[in-house]
């Protein structure tokens, strides 16, 4: 008799659900679209199924966080570990995916590429992220990262008729495979040096003076630096962000960042704790990303490219607390990720809401005088930009405050100062949209499409969260986000 491993269905329930949802959407696509009936009916089924699935995952994550149980997939040889830390990340990723899903419906119809595959791929990618954020073994890390990335390569090229979209997909794929190969090589080297793939075992055996092991550590770091688009592994970002359909850019710009940063946090804390030189490397990457990201964003003439360089700069800000390795730093990373999700998704949501008849609104001129025609939309965009720039009263400031705080506490004063100075520079380009919207004369405006209900919901949600995280980050009894981040960071330390 072969020993049968015990299964904790609870531990893989989110992944299972997402996979089932993805297949359900695929089947729905088959049987609804082929009849040639109205696409809008099929569309609501797609959005309904995938949205419901993601909502259930969010609820599971919330429930899991509250009950704080920590089931592991196969306790004898754990691959996944669902503690508060992973539940926080799962909730964030699934929530962001849910919002992207709601945004996609109207957008895909405007571009006439409304296929069910979009939602299936989105769900599968989310499943990969869920695996990634709860992985405690390099095998499951790799599984998660591939399941996350491959659907994204396809999604980037989802607008098949557009050469730019194709180019974006291909570039993402080539550069991504390269990074994955490096990552895998790194895992192999670490395995060679320590004989283990499980985080705890690696932590016990990792020797910081062993060149082979440290080369592996370096390669793994590079793999993740690519995913979070940190300089010098960032160059794919502007091309891919610009070429991919905006709904895809919105989705991947936030979720990949959350998943990759969370996984990196766990790996650094639980597997590579003894490699202290990593802190220096991370600090250097942070400095480079902040500098180059912010400087390059200034000269962009396309809003999506600008947001891509801003994403690189934001990755730099996130690397600052990551490099400290303190619980305060980890909590700051989590908080800033939440901030980033809502601010960035909101900005893309405005762009999506302005997309009309296959025409994307991604140049600065497209926003000229928008305040006159769509005052509400313009005001929302100002809010998101102001949050990304980190002006007090918004989530962005609260996030930067936490980072600043953690950095100064950990004696990273130079990094903190660099961060403050580069965010001064960032104000310049974040304000370009408000200037265009409020201070330039309106041109002939093609954007006459009214907001649909789903878009309004997403915009309102993002705006409310940006304000709540900025003004009441820990005040509401049922939404003490800062407490949550600290509890999650504590879960990380207790393993």
């Amino acid at each position: 008799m072969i020993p049968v491993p015990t299964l904790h269905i609870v531990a893989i329930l989110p992944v299972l659900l997402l996979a089932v949802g993805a297949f359900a959407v695929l089947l729905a696509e088959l049987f609804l679209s082929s009849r040639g009936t109205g696409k809008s009916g099929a569309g609501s089924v797609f959005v309904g199924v995938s949205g419901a699935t993601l909502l259930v995952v969010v609820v599971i994550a919330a429930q899991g966080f509250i009950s704080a149980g920590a089931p592991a997939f196969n306790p004898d040889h754990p691959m996944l570990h669902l503690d508060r830390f992973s539940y926080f990340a799962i909730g964030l990723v699934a929530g962001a995916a849910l919002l992207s899903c709601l945004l996609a419906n109207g957008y895909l119809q405007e571009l006439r590429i409304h296929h069910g595959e979009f939602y299936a791929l989105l769900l599968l990618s989310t499943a990969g992220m869920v695996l990634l954020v709860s992985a405690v073994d390099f095998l499951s890390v790799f599984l998660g990262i591939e399941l996350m990335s491959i659907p994204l390569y396809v999604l980037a090229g989802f607008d098949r008729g557009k050469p730019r979209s194709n180019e974006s997909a291909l570039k993402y794929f080539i550069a991504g495979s390269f990074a994955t190969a490096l990552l895998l090589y790194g895992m192999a080297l670490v395995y060679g040096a320590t004989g283990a793939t499980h985080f705890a075992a690696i932590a016990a055996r990792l020797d910081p003076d062993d060149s082979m092991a440290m080369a592996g550590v370096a390669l793994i770091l590079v793999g993740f630096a690519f995913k979070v688009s940190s300089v010098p592994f960032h160059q794919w970002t502007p091309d891919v962000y610009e070429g991919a359909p905006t709904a895809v850019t919105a989705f991947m710009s936030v979720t990949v960042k959350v998943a990759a940063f969370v996984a990196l946090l766990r790996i650094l804390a639980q597997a590579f704790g003894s490699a202290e030189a990593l802190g220096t490397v991370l600090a250097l990457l942070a400095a480079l990303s902040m500098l180059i990201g912010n400087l390059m964003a200034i000269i962009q003439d396309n809003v999506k490219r600008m947001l891509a360089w801003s994403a690189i700069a934001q990755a730099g800000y996130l690397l600052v607390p990551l490099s400290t390795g303190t619980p305060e730093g980890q909590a700051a990373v989590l908080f800033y990720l939440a901030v980033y999700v809502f601010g960035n998704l909101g900005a893309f949501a405005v762009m999506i809401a302005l997309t009309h008849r296959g025409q994307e609104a991604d140049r600065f001129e497209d926003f000229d005088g928008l305040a006159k025609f769509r005052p509400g939309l313009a005001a929302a965009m100002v809010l998101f930009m102001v949050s990304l720039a980190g002006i007090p009263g918004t989530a962005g400031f609260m996030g930067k405050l936490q980072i600043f705080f953690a950095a100064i506490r950990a004696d990273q004063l130079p990094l903190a100062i660099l961060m403050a100075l580069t965010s001064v520079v960032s104000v310049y380009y974040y304000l370009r949209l408000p200037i265009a919207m409020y201070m330039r004369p309106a041109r002939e405006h093609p954007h006459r499409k009214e907001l649909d209900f789903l878009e309004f919901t997403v915009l309102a949600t993002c705006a409310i969260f940006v304000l709540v995280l900025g003004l009441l980050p820990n005040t509401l009894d049922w939404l003490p986000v800062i407490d949550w981040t600290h509890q999650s960071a504590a879960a990380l330390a207790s393993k």
Partner: protein
Amino acid sequence: MNGANEYDLLHWIPALPLAAAVIHGLCLGLWRQPLPRIATIALSCGATGLAFVLSFFALLALTELPAGSRVLQEGLFTWIGAGPFSAEVAFLLDPLSAVMILIVSGVGFLIHVYSIGYMDADAREDKGFQRFFAYLNLFTFSMLVLVLADNLLLMFLGWEGVGLCSYLLIGFWYSDEWNAYCGSKAFIVNRIGDFGFLVGMFLLFWALQDVGSGSVAFLELQTAFPLIADQMVQLPGWLGGAQWKLATLIGLCFFLGAAGKSAQLPLYVWLPDAMAGPTPVSALIHAATMVTAGVYLICRMSFLYAAAPGASAVIAWVGALTALFAAVVAIAQTDIKKVLAYSTVSQLGYMFLAAGCGAYGAAIWHLTTHAWFKALLFLAAGSVILAVHHEQDIDKMGGLHRFLVWTRLTFLAGVLAIAGAPYFSGFFSKDEILLSVHLADHVPGHAALYWIALFTAGLTAFYMFRLYFRIFFGESRMTRDQQGSIQESPRTVTIPLIVLAILAVAGGVVFGPSEAFIPIEDANSFGNFVAPVLATVHHEVERSLEWQLAAVATLVAFLGAALAYGLYVVRPAYPAKIRRLLGGVFRLVEGRFWIDELYDRILVQPLVKLSDRVLYRGLDARLLDDMVIGGTARGIRAAAADMLKFAQSGLVQGYLFLMLVGTLAIIGYLAF
């Protein structure tokens, strides 16, 4: 709240303007229908007016308390409560903030009323009358939060909020590229200062946390500060590695913030450009309230500066030099609002000079009188601008006293006040500053500071009277058509002018004359009222010295005014001759010493060039294209041309190359 008195009406003072702004926002954003003109006016002016009434009641409640413990507080909720760092949303009313809220809501209310008339054209042509009032209310809210905040973090919220509103209002007449540029410039320069504010706040917090009482609330900071007052810190190696007094370091950080907000050297460049906004905005934000926030911050933290003589000396010297520099520049400007802007910078320099010499009471007193007379001058200038159809060049005015009777009289009141004519409001505050500088023997070079301040007083009188004579006297330099259409501004414009003129003339005598000049029982009531909050350096003052200094200052101011009269009324041909005589020197002053151009050349341009030429074109495209594609892949390109169909630009190789270099570098660092 520990032991202090609760006063639960406090939050209504900022909440009323906020509510008005939110209602305006909802109308414009969701309903998409501007409110009728009269409703807009009622809502905005009503909210600010009520805030003023409430502020007055709060002041009464405050004065009922015994003089030593005049503190009212109201906590609303915990803003950040996790970890060691916590901050409340709570308000603090003490004599210092009481003075400030009265200025903000009082002068603010007058300017709201004034705007009804001034922005009338925008109301009729639907160019955003309501939007303007929404911003104005939002500004009032932010400014009230700034001064009422009970901790540094909440103050920073207001601090940034006023910056944002200032940005929105400078760029209000939006179809103007230049206005948008000016707005951005103001915002970005301010952010540089804000960075100092933040670093100072964190340094202070951590230093106190290390001795067990970390906090950002002012009252707790004040109690706990003596624990670290004498602490020394080792600067990190890249900053020189010297031993510094911690208080000095923190003080300089906060002063950087204050210098950004209050337009001191070298961060003053944004304020003159900020004049691109509508005139009521210049009066409210860039003269009476927002720009004085820096002075308020220094006074609020006076307990810290009292222990940081180094930082105080820097403040005094920067203030004095700014005062002198801006006054010199103001002499050669011909734009009516630019003259007033540089005059504001100069007067703010006076306030910092006083604060740096430890005379915080004098700084706040000058802040108050300045709010009256400078708001008055701006509003009167606005009235002139309105009358001559948005012409701002004083070379194209002249002889307006026949048409604009009320405007001219009120303007004259403002000029006399700022020049320090005896018993006008500016006289008392300026003399107090001169006196305290004269006595401040703990500040290095205080004698020189005194002479600078005195000389500046003369310059001030000169350029203000020059402005006055150029506008209202002499031959009219306008065409006959233009002259025919000039008429006095509407009553909503003139009434605020008259109220402010009364304050500028009599406010000094009523609220806080020095005993030396009016020997009554409760003389200097203003100074005595705010004194308990401030860590003022006290000196024994001889009454005769006070008289002597006042006499000298008045004489100097009179000389300046007389010179202006001689040059611009008696011998109007002389200025041009002098200009020719001075040649290059004059052009230097007229061109504002080309500081803006210098900043552009050495800061802005290099940054843009670095991004554009080096990072973008160099590193991104050319370098990789030439080095990598050109070097290793050119052969492949020729042989396998259709392979490159896929990667249109061929840059993917470049991306991978850079990744590889980065990877090797990291491996090299970590593994070997």
